[in-house]
C-alpha cells in the first residue's frame, strides 16, 4: 500500500514536470527564430534603419519597427525579384533566402514603432 502510493506520487510528479516542460519546449523554436531575425537585422539593416528599425539614419529611410509582417515580406521579395527598385535595398535583398526574409519580417513587425493611425 505504502509502495503503491509512493509510486503514484512519483508518477504524478513526473507528469507535472513533463507538463511544465511543454511550454518551454514550444517556446524554444520561436525564440530561436526571433533571435535569427534580430541577429540578421543587426548585421544587415541597423546601419541604415537604426536599432530595431526605429531610428533611420536619413529622413528618406523608412522606420520598420512595428510594420506589418506581410508588407515587409512583400517589400523584401519585390526588391529581390526586381519588382521594386532601390540601389541599396535591391542589393541588400537579393542575397536573402525566403527563410531570412520571414525571420527579418517577423522580428521587425514585433518591435514597438509604427501604428495604423498617426
Amino acid at each position, binding site marked *: 500500500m505504502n509502495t503503491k502510493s509512493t509510486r503514484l506520487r512519483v508518477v504524478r510528479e513526473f507528469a507535472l514536470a513533463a507538463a511544465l516542460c511543454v511550454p518551454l519546449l514550444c517556446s524554444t523554436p520561436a525564440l530561436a527564430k526571433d533571435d535569427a531575425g534580430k541577429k540578421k537585422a543587426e548585421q544587415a539593416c541597423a546601419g541604415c534603419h537604426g536599432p530595431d528599425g526605429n531610428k*533611420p539614419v*536619413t*529622413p*528618406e*529611410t*523608412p*522606420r520598420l519597427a*512595428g*510594420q*506589418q*509582417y*506581410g*508588407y515587409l*515580406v*512583400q517589400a523584401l521579395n519585390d526588391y529581390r525579384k526586381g*519588382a*521594386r*527598385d532601390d540601389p541599396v535595398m535591391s542589393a541588400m535583398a537579393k542575397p536573402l533566402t525566403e527563410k531570412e526574409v520571414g525571420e527579418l519580417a517577423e522580428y521587425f513587425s514585433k518591435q514597438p*514603432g*509604427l*501604428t*495604423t*493611425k*498617426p
Partner: protein
Amino acid sequence: MYSSPMKRRCALLAASAATAFVLSVPASADGDRTRGKERAQMCEGCHGIADYRTAYPEVYPVPKIGGQQSAYIVKALRDYKKGTRKHATMQGIAATLSDQDMADLASYYAGDARK
C-alpha cells in the same frame, strides 16, 4: 570687382535668385498637419484599418504609416506619381496629389507637430 553698377546689380540679383531657390526647396517640404488630416480621408479606407490587405487589383498587405518618416512618405508618393514604384491604386492616388498635398499628408502621418 565689378566694372559697372549695372553688372553689380545683375550679380546681386543672380545671387538673391540662387538663395531664394535654395531656400525654397526645403520650404516646399514643410507640410501642414491640419490640411494633411483633411486630405487623409482618402487614405483611411486602406491605411486606417489594422492588418488590412487589399484584394483588388492584387492582394497586397497595406503598410502602417502612422509614425513613418515624413520624407520617406513624400518619396514613396513621388515615386508612385513618377511610376518608378508600382502599385495600381497608389499610382492612381499619387497622380492626383500636388507636392504640397504630399507634404501635408506626410506631416500628418509622421505626427510632425508632436515632435
